């Protein structure tokens, strides 16, 4: 079934490529300052993809505008490829059209970490739901710490993911938030976690949105990356504040030089994200 669609639900015109026929109409997912994200399909109806579109900015000189769009798209694509070659889970790049300002990348299933955490916070894990004979099999000392286990585990997975990004790929993300991390369900046995406490927090942590990423090995840049995540996390999930330390602990253990990044993080906390340019 082929339909020609014009995404009438959006107030902005979609990129030209999305006006050509597709099996399902593209859906506008988010709209940021720099661009828009559509969910659509690549090549065949069975391959979902995310199409990132950076529309021309009318307030910029057209030549400068084209050059910036091109440079940013290709920088993002290169960073994603670099991560892929190192085996760091990020979306694959399917196609890039720098002159038209779009990039088609792999669609990552699953909720953002933000949603997972919020679900978990708003809906604390119940030890048993089916009651009766399947009563509490948990150890007697099932104290508060144990109830938090899935959350602690997620925090560690996040710390590890960021550590691997920094260390193996030599990439700093530039915009680490719990919205820019997905919880991708396992390929098979997706319902293995059914009914288990902390199900909302299961899945592989996949980093997304590398629009502000840069290649850097410096402690300073890495510390700022962590600082941005810390600030974002504390403001998005104030109730989970005391668990953030687990992210940093896992980061510390993820590569040799992580400790010096964490020392640097202390400095960054004192002065904020921007380095003073005085002196």
């Amino acid at each position, binding site marked *: 079934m082929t339909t020609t669609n014009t995404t009438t639900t959006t107030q902005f015109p979609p990129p030209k490529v999305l006006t*050509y026929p597709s099996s399902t109409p593209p859906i506008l997912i988010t709209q940021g300052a720099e661009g828009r994200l559509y969910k659509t399909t690549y090549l065949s109806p069975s391959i979902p993809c995310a199409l990132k579109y950076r529309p021309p900015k009318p307030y910029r000189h057209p030549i400068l505008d084209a050059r910036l769009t091109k440079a940013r798209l290709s920088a993002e694509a290169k960073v994603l490829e670099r991560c892929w070659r190192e085996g760091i889970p990020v979306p694959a790049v399917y196609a890039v059209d720098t002159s038209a300002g779009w990039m088609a990348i792999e669609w990552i299933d699953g909720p953002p970490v933000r949603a997972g955490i919020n679900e978990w916070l708003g809906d604390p894990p119940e030890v048993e739901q089916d009651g009766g004979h399947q009563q509490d099999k948990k150890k007697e000392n099932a104290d508060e710490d144990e109830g938090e286990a899935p959350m602690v585990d997620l925090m560690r997975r996040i710390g590890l993911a960021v550590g691997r990004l920094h260390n193996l790929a030599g990439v700093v993300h530039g915009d680490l938030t719990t919205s820019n991390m997905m919880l991708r369900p396992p390929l098979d046995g997706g319902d293995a976690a059914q009914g288990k406490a902390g199900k909302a927090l299961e899945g592989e942590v996949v980093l997304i949105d590398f629009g502000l990423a840069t290649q850097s090995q410096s402690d300073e840049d890495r510390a700022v990356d962590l600082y941005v995540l810390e600030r974002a996390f504390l403001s998005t999930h104030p109730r989970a504040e005391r668990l953030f330390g687990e992210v940093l602990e896992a980061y510390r253990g993820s590569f040799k030089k992580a400790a010096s990044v964490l020392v640097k993080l202390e400095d960054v906390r004192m002065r904020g994200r921007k380095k003073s340019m005085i002196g």
Partner: protein
Amino acid sequence: MALERLTLEHVPSTHRVYITLFRDVSNSSFLQSQLISRNPEFEYAFIDVSSIISRTHLLAAVYNAINTQIDGTLKTPNVHSEVVISLSPSNNIAETYRRWGITPDKTKDLIVVKIVVSADEEEAETERKVWEHLTQHVQGTPVPLTDGEISKATDWPKVRKYYKLNGVPGLERLKDEDLKKKQMEKLVLMGMALRGM
């Protein structure tokens, strides 16, 4: 008839894409000479299957070529040659033809892609003509272009070399061979998408 009409997402309805696969082709020299002499009757993309890993791999190149043609920025004479160079992660056109295109006396299994843009004739008519012309001039056994047929001919060491997949840490760590192939396909697609960047 083993000629397949392809439907690709986000391709204008003015473009009709036909693909097929010939096994045990015996006249690759003749076919290549027709391309070199730019015989307009032989406007096809001829692709050596040994350098291809899946339908998705091929389709990505077809899509990219069509997108480039619509954009008006073809780097080669026509959309068919553009399909071939779209397979490469590099900008070296001559090398790309040698690696992915038809090679005299070497190419045995051949993918043929025909892209027809806004032809006036009926679809059935176009299809019949293309098929007639191909079966007349390609000496080989036509088979449907499936992933299974492609994988019989894929030369993995060659593909790994062409797409620089040797010694890639993200692949070396993988134990599961099926998963490894899936990941390799993604890396191949990325190599193509990032050509010249």
